[in-house]
């Protein structure tokens, strides 16, 4: 099954790329976005590994809720650093 192999290789490459970028990027906001991207790609990976239940949990908790909380935290950090209107 070459299509399956191609899918998995692409997915792995993207996973590693987004993980590395999320850790090394200087801007916090971009780090958070990359973290969300990583979480969603990870959910796809779980789906490929035959674990739809974990894919569901990863998408819901890993990317969705944690992502929203981190975005909120970024907002608070920005508001604190530069007191806005």
């Amino acid at each position, binding site marked *: 099954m070459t299509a*399956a192999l191609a899918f998995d290789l*692409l997915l792995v490459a993207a996973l590693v790329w987004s993980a590395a970028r999320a850790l090394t990027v200087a801007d916090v*906001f971009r780090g958070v976005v990359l973290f*969300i991207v990583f979480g969603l790609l990870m959910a796809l990976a779980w789906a490929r590994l*035959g674990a739809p239940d974990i894919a569901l949990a990863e998408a819901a908790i890993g990317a969705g809720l944690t992502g929203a*909380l981190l975005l909120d935290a970024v907002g608070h950090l*920005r508001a604190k650093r530069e007191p806005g209107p």
Partner: protein
Amino acid sequence: MNSLTLALAVFLLVNLLVALVRVARGPTPADRLLAALLFGTTGVAILLLLGDATGAPALVDAALVFALLAAITGAAFTRRAWREEAPVDDDR
């Protein structure tokens, strides 16, 4: 037939990854957050095709969660994270 849906899934994954270039490049924070929308539609389509190709209908549930959380992430971003004008950062 199954191999064909799988091939389409690969095609969509390539699409998704290429579109991530836009997310990585920006230039505005909103451009980056297009990732949420992107996974809300392209990611869902990939999950549905995978579910069909591998005969795992449970993936449809995961697709539902994807679509729901795209909305939550987008709302959290616009309501919370992007309150003040973040400088339009050009990178690299």
